[in-house]
């Protein structure tokens, strides 16, 4: 089954059309990287899929169900979670609370004001699990705002996966990282998205080729190619548009 399907998706802001009929199919369990030159509309595409902006045309299906016109929280409840290019955390809350907030809805606590947070055993265990996965146990009681950059990026991924969504969108997860930090991030992403569908925007080619089963190339709001990493590397159009000389 297709976890995510974009059918001729269009988006214009005023007169300028940013996404011009992008189509993409990501099957369940697949790891797809979206690459493309600056301004190609990669982040915009993510914003459309996650419901941040409404689409102007076409359709987006999540697990076979159209999510066009839905608000972000509705799409999230259907099993899609995303991270942000610029860390988007709850800066005054502790690392632990950041993650716990992200698991509450999925565990069914919703808007409860009759249950004590401290007594929610499953939320606590899930939070500790994610804390361990992203390797931030030592920082559990520190406000998210004072973490180092790499730690904030890890927490960003932690919040995204904590709710247990099966389709994960990561927007440039390794942007601004050093080589070693980025290697650690790749390892982290591979581990926490085990068995899930992953779609990510990424500039760093070593990250892309290290993680992706499939690469989609977005140029001027259109997916010009979508294939296995080896075929993309050999594709002449892609080389011309993006990778430069081989």
């Amino acid at each position, binding site marked *: 089954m297709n976890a995510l399907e974009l059918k001729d998706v269009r988006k214009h802001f005023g007169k300028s059309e940013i996404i011009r009929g992008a189509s993409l199919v990501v099957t369940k369990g697949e790891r797809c990287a979206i690459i493309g030159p600056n301004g190609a509309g990669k982040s915009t595409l993510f914003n459309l899929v*996650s419901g941040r902006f409404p689409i102007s045309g076409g359709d987006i299906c999540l697990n076979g169900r159209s999510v066009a016109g839905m*608000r*972000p*929280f509705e799409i*999230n*409840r259907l099993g899609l*979670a*995303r991270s*942000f290019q610029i860390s*988007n*955390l*709850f*800066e*005054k*809350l502790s690392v632990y*609370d950041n993650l*716990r*907030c*992200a698991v*509450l*809805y*999925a565990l069914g*606590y*919703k*808007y*409860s*004001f*009759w*249950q*004590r*947070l*401290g*007594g*929610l*055993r499953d939320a*606590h*265990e899930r939070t*500790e699990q994610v804390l361990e996965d992203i390797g931030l*146990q*030592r*920082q*559990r*009681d*520190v406000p998210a705002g004072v973490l180092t950059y790499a730690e904030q990026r890890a927490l960003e991924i932690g*919040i995204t996966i*904590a*709710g247990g969504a099966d389709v994960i969108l990561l927007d440039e997860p390794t942007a601004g990282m050093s080589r070693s930090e980025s290697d650690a991030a790749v390892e982290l992403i591979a581990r926490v998205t085990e068995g899930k569908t992953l779609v990510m925007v990424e500039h760093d080619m070593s990250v892309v080729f290290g993680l992706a089963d499939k690469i989609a190339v977005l140029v001027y709001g259109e997916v010009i190619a979508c294939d296995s990493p080896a075929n993309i590397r050999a594709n002449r159009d892609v080389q011309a548009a993006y990778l430069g000389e081989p």
Partner: protein
Amino acid sequence: MKPGLNRASGLAYTPLNLSRYLVWTCFALVLLAAPLVFTKGAALSILSQIGTLMIFGLSYNMLLGQGGMLSFGHAVYSGLGAFFAIHAMNHSGLHVPTTLIALVGGVAGMGFGVLFGYVTTKKAGTTFAMITLGLVELVFASSLMFPGFFGGEGGVTTNRVRGQAFFGITYGPQIQVYYLIAGWLFLSTVAMFAFTQTPLGRMLNAVRDNPERVEFIGYDTQSVRYLTLILSAFFAGISGALSAINFEIVSAENVSAMRSGAVLLFVFIGGIGFFFGPLVGAVVGVFFTVMLSEYSAAWQLYLGLFFIAVVRFAPGGLSSLLMLLLRVVKFGKFGRIRTPLLALLSCTLFGLLGLVFGIELLYHLTLDAADGSVVTLFGWRFDTHSALPWLAAAAMLLLACVGYRKTAPAYMALWGEVNADIAAAVRRDVA
């Protein structure tokens, strides 16, 4: 802050918080003992007013401090709660005991929270603030349009001694009203604190810090704000009902923008960042509006100046000052700042004295001139028509300014140093 090892293991995931029980017990004891300590004339009435203002402030801080919702119209809920409570007391067919009248106010406040909150909480930020301001003006205007319910200019009066005395409790004597208010204050405070420890309470903090991200982890920010406002309006209604019992009168002023602005002022002075901030703010608020206004016609000027000083020098409010000082004491560094702090404080106090002196002279000269030119201040008699007292006030201010200039920079530098040391110590603890 040490990462709790016992918590990380998942065995004892809810450590019994003994200190928390201790704090609540102390709070209850303070409430019980307050009338025994403050026995002078109007002390009971003042304590009762502080009590109702505390509930009102705490309910307001659910919005402002915990949810980042700057409301200019919170008195709508306490005021309408008060009106419903007073009508329930006056209605001959309803036999709600006075003890439980607060619930009538609470439910009424909550009802209007459901109604108005649906509109106001659709938006956050400035839009929310503007809508609440419009709403409070709307309700205030209607209160004058429907004199049958709101009692017109004179308001609605009642007699709190009604029904059968229950174990001799008639709520005639002020002491009984005080304990009624104290009881509700304790219950409401526990309930509102408990709210901060629930899933909704924590998500409210998340909505305050980053509403956008909240939408991407499954929550509708509007629902979080709306539910919170309804609960907050319930407690506001309780405080309104209690003030109706206390004063035996409710008027249009109870639903005014003035009242709404006052609670914002007091809560901010107390400190919005801490749960107990509004408790401090309520004490300060009643001190200015009830006690200081007895002694000086310039009390509003003093309140305004004090508010500006808090915003300028302690934007976290008095409770943040208190917590910062406690932190310095906890890390054993108070000795380092004691002497410069005392010097700075005495300069400030001296300047304050000069300022008050000058303001009082000016008020007497311009407003009370009919009573002659002699004014009694601090137990002394001064003639506002002679130059000497004016010169003295100016000299005090000038001296204090010079002293402040001399002592402040050194103190600030030292304060920064001490806090940097503490921050470093905390970081060492984590890493």
